[in-house]
C-alpha cells in the first residue's frame, strides 16, 4: 500500500481539494466533450482554451481571481467565433484560427506585463499548465455552482443539440433552431473550458474535454452510455493524475515532483490509444491472409 499511496496521501488537505475539484471538472468536461466530438468541434474547443489562457493571464496581471479570467476569456472567445462565423463549415477553421491567434498575442502581452510588474512568480507556468495542488479551497463552491449550471443547460438542450448535430435537416423540420442551439452549446463549451483551465491549466484543458469523450464514443454503443463512460474515464484520469503526481515526489532523489497535469494527459492519451487494441487484434486475426 505504501508503494501505491505515498505517506500522507489520504490525510493531506490539498489532495482532498485536488481530488474533489478534479472530479467535478472531469465530469463537466466529459459531458460537454461528448457533444464536442460528435459535432467535430475539437478545434473550436481547443481554440477556446487559448482564449481562456489570455483571460487567465489578464487576470494574473490585474490581480483578480484566475477562474474569473478563464471563464470570461473563453466566453468572449466563444461569442467572437460565433460572430465571425464558425457556423459555416468552410470558413470555420479560418475563423477559429484567427481568434486563436489574436488571443495568443494577448496572452503574450499580459504575461509580459505581469512579469514586468513583478507581481507573479511562476504564474505563467501555473496558468498554462495548471497546478491542482495549489488551488485554494474556497474556489470549490464556485466551481461546483458553475458545473451544475453547465450540466443543467446541457440537459435542457441535449436532445435538440444531438439531433441538430447528427442531422441538421431533421432538426429544422422538427422546429429546432440549429443556430441558437449551437450558440448555447458554444457558451456551455466556453464555461467548461474555463473550469478545466483551473484544474489542469489553460492550454491542457483540451485533454479532459476531448480525450475521455473520444475514448468513450469508441467503446460505448449509445450516446447515453458514452456520456456515462466518459465521466468515469475523466474522473479516473484526474484522480490517477493526482495520485501519481503526489507519489512522484519520492521517485527521484532530488524530490522534484512532476506536474499533475502531465499525468492526467498521459492517462487520457493512453486510454484513447488502448481503445485501438481490439481493432488491431481483430485485424490481426481476420485480415492478412
Amino acid at each position, binding site marked *: 500500500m505504501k508503494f501505491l499511496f505515498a505517506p500522507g496521501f489520504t490525510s493531506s488537505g490539498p489532495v482532498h481539494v485536488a481530488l474533489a475539484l478534479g472530479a467535478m471538472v472531469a465530469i463537466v468536461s466529459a459531458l460537454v466533450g461528448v457533444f464536442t466530438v460528435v459535432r467535430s468541434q475539437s*478545434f473550436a474547443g*481547443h481554440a477556446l482554451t487559448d482564449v481562456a489562457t489570455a483571460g487567465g493571464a489578464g487576470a494574473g496581471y490585474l490581480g483578480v481571481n484566475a477562474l474569473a479570467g478563464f471563464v470570461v476569456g473563453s466566453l468572449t472567445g466563444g461569442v467572437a467565433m460565433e460572430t465571425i462565423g464558425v457556423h459555416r463549415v468552410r470558413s470555420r477553421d*479560418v475563423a*477559429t484560427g484567427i481568434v486563436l491567434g489574436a488571443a495568443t*498575442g494577448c496572452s503574450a502581452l499580459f504575461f*509580459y506585463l505581469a512579469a514586468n510588474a513583478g507581481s507573479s512568480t511562476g504564474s505563467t507556468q501555473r496558468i498554462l499548465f495548471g497546478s491542482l495542488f495549489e488551488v485554494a479551497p474556497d474556489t470549490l463552491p464556485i466551481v461546483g455552482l458553475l458545473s451544475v449550471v453547465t450540466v443543467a443547460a446541457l440537459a435542457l438542450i441535449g436532445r435538440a443539440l444531438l439531433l441538430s448535430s447528427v442531422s441538421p435537416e431533421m432538426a429544422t423540420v422538427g422546429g429546432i433552431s440549429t443556430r441558437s442551439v449551437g450558440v448555447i452549446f458554444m457558451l456551455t463549451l466556453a464555461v467548461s473550458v474555463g473550469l478545466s483551465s483551473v484544474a489542469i491549466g489553460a492550454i*491542457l484543458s483540451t*485533454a479532459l474535454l476531448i*480525450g475521455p469523450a473520444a475514448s468513450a464514443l*469508441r467503446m460505448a454503443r449509445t450516446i447515453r452510455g458514452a456520456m456515462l463512460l466518459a465521466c468515469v474515464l475523466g474522473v479516473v484520469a484526474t484522480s490517477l493524475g493526482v495520485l501519481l503526481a503526489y507519489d512522484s515526489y519520492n521517485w527521484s532523489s532530488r524530490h522534484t515532483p512532476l506536474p499533475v497535469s502531465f499525468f492526467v494527459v498521459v492517462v487520457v492519451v493512453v486510454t484513447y490509444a488502448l481503445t485501438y487494441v481490439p481493432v488491431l487484434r481483430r485485424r490481426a486475426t481476420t485480415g492478412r491472409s
Partner: protein
Amino acid sequence: MFSGFMLNAWESGTLVAIVAGIVGFFVVLRGSAFPAHAIPNGAFAGAAGANLIGINPLLGLGLFSLLAALGIGSWGRRGRPDVVTALALVLMLALGAAFLSQSSAYEPEIYALLFGEILGVSSSQLVPLMALGVICAIAIAVLYRPLLVTSLIPDVAAAHGMSTTTIDTAFLIIVAMATTMTVPVVGALLIFTLMMGPPAAARSLSSRPSLALGLSVVIAVGVMWASIASAFQWNWPVGFFVGTYSAIAYAIARLISLRPRTRTRTLYRAHTH
C-alpha cells in the same frame, strides 16, 4: 532601430515571415489549421527537453516537431483526425511541462519558448534559419502542383494517381521544418498566428493561387515589419503585435473582398473555367 541586435531581428523576422506566408498559404488552402497549430506545440516539448539534457535546442525542436507531424499524419488516418490532433497536441504540451518541471528553467526562458524572443536572435542563429527556410521553399516549389491539385480538386488528383495521404504527410513534414526554424524567433504559440492570418487575408483577396500566394507573403512580411517596429517603439512583446496585426489584416481583407463583389466573382470564374 536598424542597428546591432535590431538588425538580427529584422533579418530573422523577414525570413520567418516569408516562410510562414508560403507554408501558411497551403495550410489555409488545405484546411489543415489544427495540425499546423499542433506541430509547433510539439516543438515546444522538444525545446524544453533539449534544455533539460543540455543539447542544441534546434535538435530537440526538429525531432519533436517531426514526431508530431508523423504521428498526426499516420494516426489521423485511423481515427478521427481532429481528435487525434487534439490529443497529440496536449500530449506534447504536457511533456514540455514535465520537462520544464524537472529543469531549472527560469520564467523568461519558458516565456521565450512559447512566445518567442525576436530581439534575442543572435547572428549564429541566422545561418541555420536561412538554410531551413530555403529547404522549405524548395520543397514547396517541387510539390507546388500536387499540393494545389490535391487540395482544390481531389477527384482529379485521384484520377491522375496522386496519393493524397502521401502528399498530406509530406506537407506536414514541411510544416514541421518551417516550425523548427521559426520557434526560436516567434515562439511555439505564435508561429501559427503568422501562418493563419496573412494567408487567410490573401485568400479572400484573390482566388488565383499564384497571386494569392504572393499576396500572402507580402502581407506576412508587412505584418512582421509593422510588429517589430511597434515592439521597438512601445517596448511591448512582438508577439502581441503579430497576433493583433494578423487579425486586423484579415478583417481588412474581408471588408475589401465584400465590397466589389461582382469583380471577384468574374475573376474567380475566369480562373476556374
